[in-house]
């Protein structure tokens, strides 16, 4: 009898333990919450790592903001890749939506009522472009910094060798490419194996030519009054195809990784590099005086700046302590040390009110200070297509389809056909 009951008890205990484990595994650990030693809430904070936003950066920045927001304890949740939006949605689907989310695309969550807007008076008081990230008039991520996507970086010594000046018009740009090629210099570097990098010339052309003339174009696309197959859009996209057909990109550009493209351009293997302003953080110090920058050229030479206002964190409406989360987010967003790391490492342009660049104690390249003038000067700033986080953000997976269209233009001369695919993808993404 003893053996039987012992075996029975062992088996029952195993099943019981497994059942408890299952229940525990299926329960919502994030939302079950917890309390810090001080009695305040423990909040989950979704972050992600990049070469400049390192684990050490997050650890230090969280610790500083925790000190300024007493009673809040942060539990960091690190996204497995830089695609934090997909990860945030996976967490939401499994009932673990974080309380705070760093650098997400808020437009993807606002319709579902998942994000709490910031107090507008606090936004107005602290930021240069208070409505830079606004969605239907409300701000869900503080507009702490900005990027220009793309700029065209150039190698001054290679330009001199080919007798080329930085171009301001599209015609001059084509001439510069032709002269560089004739001089035996690869005109443009492109890490097209990474889809977002392949799309830089298309982003530049559409932002400058289409949005430059009609800044409301994306809103009109949402309303269905304009399309990618419209003549002006096809003409702009055709410019990228022209650059491909004339052989101005590095040979095998779609076989070059983003990381290799930076290495190649820094090593002087190509004269120009269309890339987001975050490349500023990757210019080696010994090249600081050799790398120049100009905006993506327009037909008439007017300066159009494809602009994206970046920001810090969004707050979940379901956060265990929305007030505490807001305090932490505000402290993090205004911390000059965080901006210093972003300026130096990520080429971010600071957007805090009443602060000059020198106030951050940063050391930046001449290319940074030159390009920063495009942010501070009066010019035509438009949403960088595919990069904006405000009302102009693209729906669903359209960014991926946009990148795919850019890659397709390397192998297909059917520009209108590719734009037609984008219109179809738009329909799928907005269903």
């Amino acid at each position, binding site marked *: 009898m003893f053996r039987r009951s012992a075996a029975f008890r062992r088996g029952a205990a195993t099943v019981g333990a497994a059942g408890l484990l299952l229940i525990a595994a299926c329960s919502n650990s994030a939302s079950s919450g917890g309390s810090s030693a001080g009695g305040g809430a423990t909040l989950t904070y979704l972050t992600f790592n990049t070469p400049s936003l390192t684990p050490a950066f997050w650890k230090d920045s969280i610790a500083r903001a925790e000190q300024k927001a007493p009673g809040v304890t942060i539990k960091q949740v690190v996204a497995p890749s830089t695609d934090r939006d997909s990860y945030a949605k996976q967490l939401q689907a499994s009932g673990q939506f974080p309380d705070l989310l760093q650098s997400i695309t808020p437009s993807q969550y606002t319709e579902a009522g998942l994000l709490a807007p910031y107090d507008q008076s606090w936004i107005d008081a602290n930021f240069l472009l208070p409505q830079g990230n606004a969605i239907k008039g409300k701000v869900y991520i503080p507009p702490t910094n900005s990027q220009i996507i793309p700029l065209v970086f150039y190698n001054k010594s290679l330009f001199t060798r080919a007798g080329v000046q930085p171009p301001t018009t599209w015609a001059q740009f084509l001439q510069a490419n032709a002269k560089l090629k004739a001089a035996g210099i690869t005109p443009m570097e492109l890490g097209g194996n990474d889809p977002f990098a392949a799309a830089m010339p298309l982003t530049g052309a559409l932002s400058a030519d289409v949005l430059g003339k009609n800044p409301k174009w994306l809103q009109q696309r949402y309303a269905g009054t304009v399309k990618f197959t419209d003549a002006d859009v096809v003409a702009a996209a055709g410019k990228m195809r022209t650059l491909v057909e004339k052989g101005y990109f590095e040979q*095998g550009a779609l*076989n070059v990784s983003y990381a290799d493209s930076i290495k190649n351009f820094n090593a002087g293997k190509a004269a120009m590099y269309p890339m987001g302003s975050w490349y500023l953080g990757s210019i080696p110090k010994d090249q600081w005086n050799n790398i120049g920058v100009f905006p993506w050229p327009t037909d008439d030479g007017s300066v159009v700046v494809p602009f994206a206002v970046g920001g810090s964190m969004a707050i979940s409406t379901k956060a265990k302590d929305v007030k505490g989360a807001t305090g932490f987010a505000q402290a993090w967003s205004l911390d000059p040390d965080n901006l210093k790391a972003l300026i130096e490492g990520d080429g971010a342009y600071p957007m805090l009110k009443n602060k000059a660049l020198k106030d951050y104690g940063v050391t930046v390249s001449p290319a940074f200070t030159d390009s920063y003038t495009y942010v501070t000067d009066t010019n035509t700033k438009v949403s960088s297509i595919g990069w904006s986080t405000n009302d102009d953000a693209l729906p669903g997976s359209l960014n*991926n389809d946009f990148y795919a269209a850019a890659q397709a233009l390397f192998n297909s001369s059917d520009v209108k056909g590719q734009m037609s695919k984008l219109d179809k993808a738009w329909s799928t993404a907005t269903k």
Partner: protein
Amino acid sequence: MKPLSHWFRDTSQDLGLRLIAALGLLLYLVFIVVPVFMSLRSSFTDENPLKSGSNWIGFGNYSEMLHDSQLRTSVVFTLLLAAGVTVVANLVGLAFALLLDRTALSYRVLRTVAFLPQVVSGVIVGFVWKTILTQDGLLNTVLRSLHLVHTPVDWLGKPHLAQFSVGVVVAWVLSGFTTVVYLAALQNIPQELYDAGSIDGAGAAQQFRMITLRMVAPATTISVTISLITVLKLYDVIQVLTSGGPANATQSTAQYIVKMAFTNDRFGYASSIAMFLLALSAVIALSVTSILRRREVDL
């Protein structure tokens, strides 16, 4: 007749086994059966991961699938990849198994090496092969140093070449598994069969055709079926290697499902594609198994 205490012991052991089996069944139900039924239910709705609640839309998602050109492209690519990789991985696996079917220590070490691709995570495989296949990667560097090519080959940059490259990498991964399956089968072939064949005057080629191929037929059935299923649901290697590019040329159906679910927020539609992929995999697996089983009997 068994003593009474033995009956109690047998019964208690039996009860323990039953409980363990019940636990296994419970885990299978919770983690396999229930999610499949949840997904099936979701496929008839407009479920969105960001919203609570959903509407029943009948066969709306399935009807949309018929007109989805991106889905069609990804399914065609996935099917071609599955067919090509299965053939190559099984041929390579059988060849490796024949080479490694020795008892010396060095061969045992080589067997471990042959199995390594299967052990390494798909993400790591993707990263490693990406560094090999990019413009200034190892392969182009070697080819250029040997003067076999003058300009680097766009292994991941041209649509058809990228599809071929993905196929080679996935076949490389799977060949570790197929090698082990065929090795196990080869080691179960009695030596007497070869001895009898030799006495009858059969040469090496005849012995391979008449003995080896016939005796490994059950292993072929398993290896081919598992290879097909593995490739039909492939995600990680391709995601890291090409991100589905260039221009969606290497986008697998599994990648498309993830894109629909977590980028377009269309859980319902993604579930309908997942159901389709499940059904497709089941039909292919059952058909192939049935054909190969019949072949086993014929052999």
